[in-house]
C-alpha cells in the first residue's frame, strides 16, 4: 500500500513529540522542535531536489543533517559572531536555497512542457 497523504508522515512526528514531552517536559519538546526545524527540515528541503525515494530522503536528511548542517553553521559562525544567530541564519539560508532550486527546476519543467 503506497501512502500519499502527507498527514501520515506528520502523525508519527506528533506521537514522538508528545512522547518526548511526556518524558522530559517542555525542554524535551523544545529540543525536538529545534532539531526538526533547524537541522532536519533544511536538509530535507534541499534533498527534495534530488531524485531519491521518500524513505531515503527522510533518512538521509536525518543523518546528513546531524553533521553537515552543523558544519555549514560552523562556517557561517566564522562570519556571524553569534552561534545562536548562525544556527537560524544557516537554516533559513538552506531552506531558501532548497526552495530556489526547486522553483527553478519547476520553471525548467514548465518551459519544456510548453
Amino acid at each position, binding site marked *: *500500500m*503506497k*501512502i*500519499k497523504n502527507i498527514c*501520515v*508522515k506528520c502523525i*508519527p512526528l506528533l*506521537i*514522538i513529540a508528545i*512522547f*518526548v514531552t511526556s*518524558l*522530559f517536559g517542555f*525542554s*524535551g519538546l*523544545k*529540543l525536538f*522542535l*529545534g*532539531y526538526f526545524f*533547524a*537541522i532536519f527540515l533544511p536538509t530535507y528541503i534541499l534533498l527534495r531536489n*534530488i*531524485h*531519491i*525515494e*521518500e*524513505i*531515503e530522503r*527522510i*533518512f*538521509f536528511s*536525518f*543523518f*546528513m543533517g*546531524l*553533521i*553537515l548542517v*552543523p*558544519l555549514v*553553521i*560552523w562556517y557561517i*559562525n566564522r562570519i556571524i*559572531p*553569534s*552561534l*545562536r544567530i*548562525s*544556527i537560524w541564519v544557516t537554516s533559513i539560508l538552506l531552506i531558501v536555497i532548497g526552495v530556489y532550486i526547486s522553483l527553478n527546476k519547476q520553471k525548467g519543467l514548465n518551459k519544456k512542457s510548453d
Partner: protein
Amino acid sequence: MNNLKLKDIIALTILFLVAFWLWALPIQKNSLPFGEHDGAYIFSHGDYMSYVDKSSDVSGDYPISIAFWYTGYNKVLGPMTLEYPPPYLMDYAFAQIFGGERIVPVYIFIAVSCFIGIFSIYLLMRELYGFEAAILTSTAIMFSFRTALLYLWGQRHNVTAFIFIPIAIYSLYIYLDSFYKNEEKIQYLYIFVLLLICTYLVHFSATVFLIPFTLILITLMSIKNKRLPIKNKNIKHYLILATLAIIIVSQFYLIYFGADSTDKVDFAIKNIGGFFKWIEIPSNNFGMNPIFHDYSSSYMSFWSIVLLLLGVFVLLWRRKNKDLVLISALSALYAMFHLSNFGLITEGSYRIGRYLVLENYFFYSIMVIGLLFIPDLVKVPKQYRSISKLLLTVFFLIILVSTQGSKLYDTLNDSYEGVLRITPVQYELSEWIQENIPEDSALYIRGTLTYPKKAFVQILSRRTMERGEDIPLRREILSENIIKDNMKVLPQFVRGTDWVIPLDYVIFDYTDILAIGNQQMFDSLTQMEETVSKNASVIYNKNNIKVYKYN
C-alpha cells in the same frame, strides 16, 4: 511518496519510541550527567560553545576546564586544539540552545545519536533483504549491549560515527547496483561521499573502517560484474566530489594528524596463528571490561553461532550483488581485527576493541539472513513460506526482547546510581566555583569518590582541576616545552615554552565518603584537610564540602 509504506512508518515509529524510552532511562531517573572521563571531556566542548555563544576554532579556542587535560596531544597546533572536528561537538551546544537547559537536552541528544543506528541498519536491510530482516536487525541493534556500554562509559562520538556506516554503504550499494544495471544513479555516489565525510567529521575510526569496506565491496562487485564502476563521462562528478572532500578534509586534517598517536606502526607480519581466529582478544581486553567482548553477552548465547554460520553459508552460496555487501562487511571487520598482525596498530589498542560495536551490526544482519533462510532450507511448501517466516520473525523478536532486551533494560536502568553519579550538592559546588574562582587558577579536588565524577565537577565548574589522590601542595600544573611560536594559546598560561597554571585552591568533598560511610577514607581526608588548613583559609563551607584558598 514512492516506497514508504504504512508498515514502515508504523515499525519505525514504534522502534523509535521504544529505543528512546529505553536509552533515555539513565537520564529519566536522575537529571545529572553520567559517564566516564571521555564523556565529561566531550561534554565540555559543546557546553563551552553554547556558553560563549561561538563554535570553536580548530585551535586556540578551547574550554579552560580541559586546557591542561591532554596538553601534549597535538604537537603541531598546541594544547588548545580540538581533538575532533567541531560538528559533532556543536550538536551538544545545539541541544543546550534548543532545549534551554544545560544537562538533560544534551543527554537526550546523546541517547538518540547512539541508538539511531537502528534506522541506518533498517534502511540497509530493508533494501537488501526486506521488511522482516530490517525489523529483526534493527531490534537487535536497539538492544546492542556493546553500543550501550560505550554510550554509558562515554565514547559516544565513536558510537555516533559508526551509525553512518550502514547508511553510507547503502548509498554506495544503490549506486554500484544501478551502475551495473546500466541505470546509473549518480546522486547516490554524491550521498555516499557526503556520508563518508560525516564519519570523518565525527570520529576518524569510522572512516578508517568505511574505506576498506568500500574498496572491498567495489572490488567484489567489479569481479562479479567483470568491469570497474568507472566511466569517462563521470569525470566531472569525480572531480567535484574529490574537490569537496579535499576542502573539508584539509580544514580539519591537523586535528587528527597533528596529534601524537599512541599507536605505533611497525609494518611486519606478526602472530600468524592470529590470522586463523576471527579476533584475538589481547591480555589487556582492549583496555575495557571483558564483558564488552564476551560473545554470549552480546549475542543471546552461543547457540546463535549456528544462525551466524548459516547466514555466512547463504551469503557465500548465493553471492548475489546484495550478498556482497555483508561479505565485504565481514572482510573489512576481519581486516580491522587483524591490523595488529600486520604491525599497523599497537597490539591491544582500544581502537580495535571499539570495532566490536560494528561486529554487532553485521553479525546480527547475517544471523537474520540465516534465520529467514530456514524455511527454504527445510523446504517448507511455498504456500506456507510467508507464514513460517513471520513465525520465525516473531519467535526471534521474543527471544531478543527476553534476553538482550531485558539485559539492556537492567543495565541502563541501574547505571550510575547513587554516589556513582555527580550529586546535586556537587553540581551546586561547580556553579559556585564558576562564579567565584578566577579562570587562571586551578583547584585540587579531593574526596569525591570516583575519577570520572571529579572530571564532571571540573568541566561543569569550567575550571582546571587536579584530580589525583596525593596530599595537595602549593604548586603548579606544568607541561614543559610544548609551546611553539605559531600556536594559538591563552597567553596567561604560557611561560617561555611551558604551559602552566597555579594550583591556588583545594576542594575537600566529604559527601560521597559520608554517603558510603567509610570511616578510613573520612579520617584520611580529615588528616589531609588539617595539613592544608595550616597554610590556607576556608572560602566555601556548605553541604559537607569545603574549598580552601592558599594564603
